[in-house]
């Protein structure tokens, strides 16, 4: 029996945005938590994303509500965490390149407006006045002033410090290798650096959640989906609101199978699906993002990088002359059941799974994590 090195009320597997937020909200309510991370904080999908907190891309329903609630929570988080998480609210802009997309967006955004989301329709002239660097061929856009951006690295540093302030512990470089169970309860999480005993175990391991689930013979309906991203040199402010293509929403809206497996043959960005351009507070442009099923391969590919660079340069021509200095790829937890996988799963009442947000993890993390923390603190879960 491996040595028990720590004991707590809630052990959280996964040092990404979801795991750390759950750790924060639980420890803020006086619960004793240990976050267990196989590498470093932010080394998964959280550290490899476009840092955009987007409500405008969500259909009315629970996901949209959580995105809106999270947006409001982000407003006060910097003070609450007493750390500059580089949260800025410059809004989001979904651009339309064809009349068909414009039509789809009108229907999509009208439904959102009815659900209370502040969305504005901009015609071609208004769109170019708002963002002069946009290519002339763009015919219009929709803007949501509620959407913002955050620096995921800074956010995790803030959560790390907050959890420690409340007495919580963070175990990095501690890959989970197994569990101890008793009846229908998980009693200990076994890691390379010793076991952690806990009353409740939360699995916030993102795309790696299925591997954790297998250790308990639990099938977690998640698949890793790779998103490649290009980072440019820092430049003076070029855009305000970050820019996304309407193609993904238009395709989703027309119920075209958006999530078809495009990692095989064709160009992952052939339809500009999910093209997104944002600019960090430091000035780097973030150009994304592919959606590929390639298993746990977090490498980049010539096809992926080439297509992102091509499409983003057609949307903002000035990008052509900007130097790319880094590329990266994140494995996002793609849910096979259409929505996030949240709650106790399988025969163990105190094994709570929280994953499946794919690219929206950061955007909905605060409200999702608070909800989970409430359920655990109240004893409803666990």
């Amino acid at each position, binding site marked *: 029996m491996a040595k028990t090195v720590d004991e707590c009320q809630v052990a959280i597997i996964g040092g990404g945005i979801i795991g750390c937020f759950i750790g924060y909200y639980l420890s803020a309510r006086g619960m004793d938590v240990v976050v267990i991370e196989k590498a470093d904080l932010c080394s998964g999908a959280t550290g490899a994303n476009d840092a955009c907190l987007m409500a405008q891309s969500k259909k009315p329903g629970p996901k949209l509500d959580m995105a809106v609630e999270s947006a409001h929570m982000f407003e006060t988080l910097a003070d609450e965490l007493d750390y500059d998480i580089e949260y800025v609210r410059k809004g989001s802009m979904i651009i339309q390149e064809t009349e068909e997309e414009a039509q789809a967006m009108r229907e999509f955004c009208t439904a959102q407006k009815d659900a209370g989301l502040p969305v504005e329709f901009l015609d071609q002239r208004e769109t170019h006045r708002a963002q002069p660097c946009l290519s002339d061929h763009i015919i219009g856009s929709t803007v949501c002033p509620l959407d913002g951006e955050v620096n995921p690295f800074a956010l995790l540093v803030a959560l790390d410090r907050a959890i420690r302030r409340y007495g919580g512990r963070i175990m990095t470089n501690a890959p989970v290798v197994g569990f101890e169970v008793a009846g229908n309860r998980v009693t200990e999480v076994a890691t390379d650096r010793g076991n952690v005993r806990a009353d409740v175990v939360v699995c916030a391991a993102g795309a790696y959640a299925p591997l954790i689930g297998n250790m308990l013979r639990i099938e977690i309906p998640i698949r890793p989906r790779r998103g490649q991203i290009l980072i440019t040199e*820092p*430049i*003076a402010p*070029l855009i305000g609101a970050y820019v996304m293509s309407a193609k993904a929403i238009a395709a989703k809206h027309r119920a075209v199978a958006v999530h078809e497996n495009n990692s095989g043959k064709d160009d992952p960005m052939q339809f500009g699906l999910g093209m997104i351009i944002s600019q960090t507070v430091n000035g780097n442009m973030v150009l994304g993002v592919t959606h590929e099923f390639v298993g746990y391969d977090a490498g980049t590919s010539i096809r992926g990088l080439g297509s992102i660079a091509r499409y983003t340069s057609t949307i903002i021509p*000035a990008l052509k*002359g*900007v130097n790319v200095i880094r590329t990266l790829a994140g494995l996002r937890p793609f849910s096979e059941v259409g929505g996030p996988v949240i709650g106790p799963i399988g025969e163990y009442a105190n094994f709570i799974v929280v994953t499946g947000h794919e690219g929206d993890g950061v955007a909905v993390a605060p409200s999702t994590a608070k909800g989970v923390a409430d359920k655990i603190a109240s004893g409803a879960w666990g």
Partner: protein
Amino acid sequence: MRVPDHPILGSAPAAEKVVIEVDGRKIEAIRGEPIAAALMANGILVNRYTAKRREPRGVFCGIGRCTDCMMIVNGIPNTRTCITAVEEGMVIQTQRGKGDVR
């Protein structure tokens, strides 16, 4: 300071002189030599000032890796002058902080 005669390399081969502009001042350079060499030959060692501390930087690695010799060349910021060849009429500016791309 240029070295026209060298004990091992011999005298410098005939080279085409060109004129480039650095922060509004015309200087003479040799076509094809790195911009940083032309500037250094004219006693100009500061290529940029950093964004945070506003400190001067110049050639450090000399092989295009460290990016400390960056200047705005023909309007393009973040250009590494130790590996960019001089051409007639180039307009070069000391870069202050981050480059401004339009």
